[in-house]
């Protein structure tokens, strides 16, 4: 079974960061010179990077290095202090509210703490946004929600409340909820950090499945290095608000160039 994501009819082809024409792929997300401070603490320091359509990019690095902040900015939960962020050729911050809503429709996010709505059933959690935001009919939304629940292996939990589910089950519902909006990009923010160890594998297997069987663009922050190696097209090593090293997973995990990367991987692997 596959998850169909909204196809972009005419993806804009942007020049690369150095002004050269794009090398055959289309750029979906681009951050330029993005800086974010909390008080005296600089979380992101003049960050540049881009993500191409359909690619799976993983951000690794020590806690507090600003990885999560990037995802939160893309989801418009935090603003950058400086720099520009573009999604699918459209600029965020500043952008008129209408444009922000349009950009958000292209992005789905799964949170570390699931953030399911405890006052709604599982089914309603998934159908709420398609019905009120996309204007889907309730029947259509429910049919789709049931398909997604089957995909995540929780077809029998439609009428359960989030509080009746295990952490792993809740996170799988959250993934289904994000996919129900048919986003082009899926942001995964340490989605297994809050789970009991024995529940981690199930969620990661599901995400591997989704990564393999769909053309959705993924941007993950994770501490699961095995998972990062399996699904990534590109891995970015972060430290102190900067990208220390970027490359294919084989390169980063097999033969990292930077001392800092080796140090970090040595500590977590």
């Amino acid at each position, binding site marked *: 079974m596959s998850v169909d994501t909204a196809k972009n009819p005419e993806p804009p082809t942007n020049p690369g960061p150095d002004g050269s024409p794009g090398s055959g792929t289309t750029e979906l997300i681009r951050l330029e010179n993005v800086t974010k401070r*909390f*008080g005296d603490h600089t979380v992101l320091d003049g960050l540049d990077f881009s993500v191409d359509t359909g690619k799976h990019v993983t951000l690794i690095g020590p806690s507090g290095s600003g990885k999560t902040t990037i995802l939160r900015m893309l989801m*418009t*939960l*935090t*603003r950058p202090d400086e720099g520009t962020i573009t999604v699918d050729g459209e600029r965020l*911050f500043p*952008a008129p*509210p209408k444009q*922000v*809503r349009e950009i*958000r429709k292209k992005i789905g996010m799964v949170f570390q703490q699931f953030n399911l709505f405890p006052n709604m059933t599982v089914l309603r959690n998934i159908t709420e946004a398609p019905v009120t935001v996309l204007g889907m009919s309730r029947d259509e939304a429910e049919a789709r929600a049931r398909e997604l629940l089957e995909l995540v292996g929780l077809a029998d939990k439609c009428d359960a409340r989030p509080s009746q589910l295990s952490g792993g089950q809740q996170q799988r519902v959250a993934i289904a909820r994000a996919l129900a909006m048919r986003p082009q990009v899926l942001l995964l923010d340490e989605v297994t950090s809050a789970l009991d160890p024995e529940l981690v594998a199930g969620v990661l297997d599901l995400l591997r499945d989704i990564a393999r069987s769909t053309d959705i663009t993924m941007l993950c922050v994770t501490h699961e290095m095995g998972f990062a190696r399996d699904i990534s097209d590109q891995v970015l090593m972060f430290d102190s608000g900067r990208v220390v090293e970027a490359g294919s997973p084989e390169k980063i995990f097999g033969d990292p160039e930077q001392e800092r990367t080796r140090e970090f991987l040595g500590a977590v692997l």
Partner: protein
Amino acid sequence: MTKGLWELVLQGVWTTVQLLVLSALLATAVSFVVGVARTHRLWIVRFVAGFYTEVFRGTSALVMIFWVFFVLPPAFGWQLVPMWAGTLALGLTYGAYGSEIVRGALNAVDPAQREGGIALSFTPWQRMRLIMLPQAVPEMIPSFCNLLIELLKGTALVSVMGMGDLAFSGNLVRLALQESAEIYTYVLLIYFVIAFALTRLMRGLEKRLKRGVGKDLLNEAGAREAKRAETTGVGAAGGGVA
């Protein structure tokens, strides 16, 4: 409004302030006696104190005032001066609320402190006086501040009995002028100013007491502020950045 009418209002303010101070003193005494009694080791003491609290919290302050003014005199054969009747009714009622504050704050003191007192072989009364109360009192102040404002508002009830407080003088002026908007606006403003002054006073008191037990208000406020900064990124503006 004429000068004479303003004098009437000022007399009312004076009566209100007197009544407020007297009933606040009585209420404080009742709060501590009953509140401490509710943590007593004998169940009968706890029960009596609890019964008092339930009864006086359960009844309406105005009904209590009527009772003290009309039922007490014939029943016991003595007549109270209105000021004392008002003080008694308000002090007993608001003291019952205050006893809950005292009890809550005493219960919130770290049990290790009590054990420390036992280890030093203090008597129960010494423990209460030297260890429990000094730590519990600063924690009570914000709640007592709210209760004091409630008591200030409660003093207006005695006007129903014809006692010449601020609310009553407002009624007199209304009758004299046959016009109500202006005088009641003034009366409300005066109550508000008194309430504002009381709040300031209690805040100053809290600061001094907290310094006495080594709690740094500045640090606490700083921590609270930092916590708020963490959470206001979203929601403060009614849902998200857009």
